[in-house]
């Protein structure tokens, strides 16, 4: 559905030359917000019905909307979409509504209470998983009025229980864990208000009844002081089930092949983890001065050659002269001595 390279270039030519009608500023701002960004905001979700959807499945979609609000779009009409056969419709809708996640609800005899959740990359379907809902307790309807509900737009805590979530080789469950995390995690943030956490979604997987069941439970959190350690600042949560609760079974799946999966997870260089600088020898004093420490081996100062300047050379020369003078005088004395001895011995002065 996306324009080809050639089409984009042609379109851009028209825009720049003024022959294409450019929309007004508000529309341009919106279009700019849908373009790819370096650091991405949360994904929007698209909820729609398939060929035939029961009232219960409509309620499931309404529940999902309540969970994902405000980053969600719920479409009302039924669509002739079978996700596992043809993804073109889904991709088109994803482009037009600017949604990277989707959930298609349908109900027929062969696949009752069917919910297909999936995600797109670059508006192309990446992964899909079909969940057959065996039990659903709605927070909007089945839990009654006195139960606490999560606030709109809060980020959930997530929890995956059970060893089957880690079985990479034989099963789809690790991929499903990734998909569910993506679906429910909400906006990705750097900082979060520690006291603003108000719900947790728990996914429990266990083999039962011949198949593998997955139980999704949502609990409302109230942070309380730790009764065992009253001095600690770390709170302890009080959990109360508030719904929605799902019991489901994994039916069909369609995972992206490894190349596409890798490409989709590739982050730009600016956001990748940087190798930390090893500043072991840098310190900062309390005055704000940065001091550096150089580590050297032991130096043999005596044997080292230093830089010579005039004064040093002069001194050296003077010393050498002195020495030679001393040596000379010594020699002269010795010669004199020897001369005297010679004279004493032989009576006359030595002639060279």
């Amino acid at each position: 559905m996306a324009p080809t390279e050639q089409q984009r270039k042609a379109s851009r030519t028209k825009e720049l030359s003024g022959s294409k009608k450019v929309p007004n500023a508000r529309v341009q701002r919106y279009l700019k917000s849908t373009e790819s960004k370096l650091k991405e905001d949360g994904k929007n979700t698209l909820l729609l019905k398939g060929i035939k959807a029961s009232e219960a499945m409509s309620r499931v979609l309404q529940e999902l909307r309540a969970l994902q609000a405000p980053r969600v779009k719920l479409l009302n009409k039924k669509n002739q979409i079978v996700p596992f056969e043809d993804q073109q419709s889904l991709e088109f809708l994803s482009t037009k509504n600017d949604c990277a996640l989707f959930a298609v609800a349908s109900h027929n005899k062969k696949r009752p209470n069917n919910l297909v959740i999936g995600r797109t990359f670059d508006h192309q379907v990446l992964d899909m998983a079909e969940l057959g809902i065996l039990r659903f307790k709605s927070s909007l309807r089945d839990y009654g009025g006195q139960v606490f509900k999560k606030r709109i737009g809060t980020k959930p805590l997530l929890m995956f229980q059970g060893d089957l979530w880690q079985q990479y080789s034989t099963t789809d469950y690790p991929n499903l864990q990734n998909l569910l995390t993506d679906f429910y995690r909400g906006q990705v943030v750097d900082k979060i208000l520690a006291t603003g956490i108000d719900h947790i979604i728990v996914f429990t997987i266990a083999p039962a009844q011949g198949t593998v069941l997955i139980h999704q439970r949502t609990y409302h959190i109230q942070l309380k002081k730790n009764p065992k350690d009253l001095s600690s600042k770390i709170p302890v949560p009080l959990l109360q089930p508030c719904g929605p609760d799902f019991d489901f079974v994994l039916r069909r799946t369609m995972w992206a092949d490894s190349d596409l999966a890798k490409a989709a997870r590739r982050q730009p260089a600016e956001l990748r983890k940087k190798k930390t600088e090893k500043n072991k020898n840098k310190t900062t004093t309390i005055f704000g001065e940065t001091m550096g420490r150089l580590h050297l081996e032991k130096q043999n100062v005596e044997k080292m050659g230093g830089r010579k300047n005039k004064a040093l050379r002069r001194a050296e020369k003077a010393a050498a002269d002195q020495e030679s003078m001393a040596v000379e005088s010594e020699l002269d004395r010795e010669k004199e001595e020897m001369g005297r001895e010679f004279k004493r011995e032989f009576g006359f002065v030595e002639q060279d």
Partner: protein
Amino acid sequence: MVAKKQKTKKSKNVEEEEVDYAAVADQFADLSDHDSVEEGDDDDDDDENDESASGDSGDSNDENENSGSDDDKEDSEDHDDSEEHDDSEGDEEDDDGEEDNIARKITTNSFAGPEPCSFDMHNLLAINSHQMDTSKMYIKKAGKYNDEEDITIPPESLELAVNEKYLLEKAASGCTQLIAALWQLPIESSDVGPMVSLPIHDGSKIPRQLPPPPPKKETKWEKFAKLRGISLNKEKRSQKVFDEATGEWMYRHGYRKANDDTKEWPIMEVKGNDDPYADPWEKQREEKRSRKDKNMESRMRNEERAGNLVKGTTNKLLKNRDKARMAGKAGGDLDRYNVPPSGVPVDLKPTKGSGDIKSMKRGKASITNALLATQRSTASLGNFDKMLEGEPERKKNHIGAKKRKYEGSTDKAVISTEAERAMKVFKHVVDGGGAQKEKARLKGRLAKGETAYDYEFNDGLGPSTFQKKKGRAAAGKMKKMTKKRIK
């Protein structure tokens, strides 16, 4: 009182179930006892829980943003149908006698239980990779699970019912650990409360929505500025500028910008070297146009260099634009200066060979031709019409028209050549004119596109648009138009 009834009903249910989860049953019995105790203490808890709630926000003790909301929560907790167990966690400030009990119960239920979890704090995710104990997790349904009949999708196909309490305990344990882990991260206090900095990297790898944007390519100027060390004015320039005329701060660019010289003032000064007879408004428009052109051109060239446009589009576009402008000007000039001479029928044979309007000049030749044509443009071909004063002689025959000789059908000459001549004509028609027609067309003797026979004309009608019926009948299914009776 209603609440209590509910609880006892639930506990009854619990006891009614099979011995399958006997190990857990004791715990539940304990809890139900505890429940009845705690109900009476709920009012006391209100005040004490408020304090504890306000103590929650670690550093910023002034901000009791939670206490306000907690007030409401505590009130509603009175009427809470309370899924039993976890209220135990809320009652910290009970009497001493109960406290030991509570402490004991708390350790058995939750709080950093025996299963440590691993965390992905980037996504606030806890992973408990221990195997689930299915014997504890599931309860065999005796018959219909009473509570679940009227939920949105009832568990008809499930033979086992999930032990919600067990799940909740496990969840509580994991959640406690997760929150503890959250509070280990660097916290800074802000005016809304304690903000925890989440780690940016090392989370579970979740794919992006869109591929990362390609790095922006430098424009020619940016490259040059970088090379020469010239600073681009991006950060220096302020968005607003002081406008002298109005004496206020207006935007530097755009609609109603500050210090706008390009407006069309009713009176324009003649400066220095300007020609006083030149049109200053025309000049201004020309300047604006040239600036726009230059801007467009440089933008396009930059994009071309960056690879966003096909190489060579700028040059092509400029050439075409110039051509189009010239043609436009020429067309305008034509309309102004080259009006076809009036009184001469346009489709008349031109004086010169080309047939161009330009070459049709007024003059004796075209007038004579026009007159000739007019003279014979009557039903009698001008034979019986009155002559006007000064009118030249009417040529009896049409110029170029030959009088045909009578060809009898029994003449030898006719018989021998008739077939041939007919074939010739036939072939001429079948061939569509052939070389002769081409010649004529090139010379410009044929009508130019004025008739439907001259070229393939698409009139928009086709088999699909053909309607057999017309008018109302063609509208399709007809609805019976009847008057509605007013009752």
